[in-house]
């Protein structure tokens, strides 16, 4: 019992300095939703909007149309339009969908943005070479930013 005390204090210090993001393998899904913020901080919706449109980041508009993002060219039509998702889904559900959509929609074509295992021949980004370490497509912070932006899409 005694020996745990220094560790507990250590953990408290770490979280005071910087909350450790939930690691991809530790994300807890309940019916496809993730209650806990991955960063412990509110996301930045403005940056989330950038992540949705950027080819090197979320590139969500490759598959989804978003009326609010009409200034960003070329929206795809693989998935449903995201207009009104802030009404249709709760924040926890959106976090689950963005982190690993396969937990919500079995077998969906939508990629899992916060996952590091279970891939077949994962590549080193878009080089075509093998990945040495697999990092999630989006960081915990980017996921939270995207969720914050999606929550603004109300009808």
């Amino acid at each position, binding site marked *: 019992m005694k020996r745990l005390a220094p560790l507990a204090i250590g953990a408290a210090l770490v979280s005071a300095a910087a909350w450790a993001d939930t690691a991809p393998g530790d994300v807890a899904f309940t019916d496809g939703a993730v209650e806990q913020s991955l960063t412990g901080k509110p996301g930045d919706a403005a940056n989330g909007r950038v992540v949705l449109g950027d080819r090197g980041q979320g590139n969500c508009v490759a598959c989804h149309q978003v009326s609010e993002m009409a200034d960003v060219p070329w929206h795809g039509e693989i998935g449903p339009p995201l207009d009104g998702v802030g009404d249709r889904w709760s924040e926890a559900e959106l976090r689950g969908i963005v982190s690993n959509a396969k937990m919500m929609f079995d077998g969906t074509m939508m990629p899992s943005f916060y996952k590091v295992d279970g891939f077949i021949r*994962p590549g080193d980004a878009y080089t075509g070479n093998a990945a040495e370490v697999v990092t999630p497509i989006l960081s915990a912070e980017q996921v939270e930013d995207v969720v914050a932006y999606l929550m603004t899409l109300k009808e």
Partner: protein
Amino acid sequence: MLKKAIVLAGAAALTGLASTAVLAGPDDDELVIDGETFVTELPGFEGSPLDPIYSGWRFRDDATQALEMDDFENPAFVFVEQAAESWETVEGTEGKSCASCHGAVEESMKGVRASMPSYNEAAGELWSLENYVNFCRTERMGADALKWDGDELNAMTALIALQSRGMPMAPVIDGPAAEWFERGKEIYYTRYGQLELSCANCHEDHTGDMIRADHLSQGQINGFPTYRFKNTKLNSAHGRFKGCIRDTRAETFAPGSPEFRALELYVAWRGQGLSIESPSVRN
């Protein structure tokens, strides 16, 4: 059906994008080259995963389509002419050219592309057209093998494929080719890479849909080698496979690899009956 309606309604709200979304599906244009009408659409054959089967030409914009309809405009012909010169050029230690043994390419290579890739008994392997060309070079001419998906080899396969233009794709998938076919099919449906996408996710489930700025076709190979605006040169089918797999954030296979030869056979079968358009023009 319902999904499409929702997508269109969403698109209508985006005034600027409405026109691209309405485009879903192939257009109704007819491909005519030199007075000959090409088969760009046909009903699925028995066991076909696609019905109808469409050439990728039907999903390109009018300007791109037009370039393929006129050999003087088709940028691929610059390379075909270079290959026609190589055909006659003596290379290697044996003092021979392709023409020394095969004579006129128009005669000897007629129909060869239609059944590629094909099982080669002597090698005990499935060979793409490129393998046959390189075998003649290294074993019969004493010349170097040309680089897979490189400009020279793509030009030569374009010249050879042109001699089958207008003929139907007719790969042989039984006998010793059967296990290659099965391997190719398995690859086609495997969800590779960090995006976990298979060929089928895009080219079978979403034919006609826009993915960002791209209008998805069935990913057919009846037009290969293909001249692409993207890199302003000829591209082999394996080069295209490599790009598509790379874009799923995956480790690709190499052009010429057994995996891509198997995949080529399987994809050729999916387009069985389409007219060969080589050398085609794509963006």
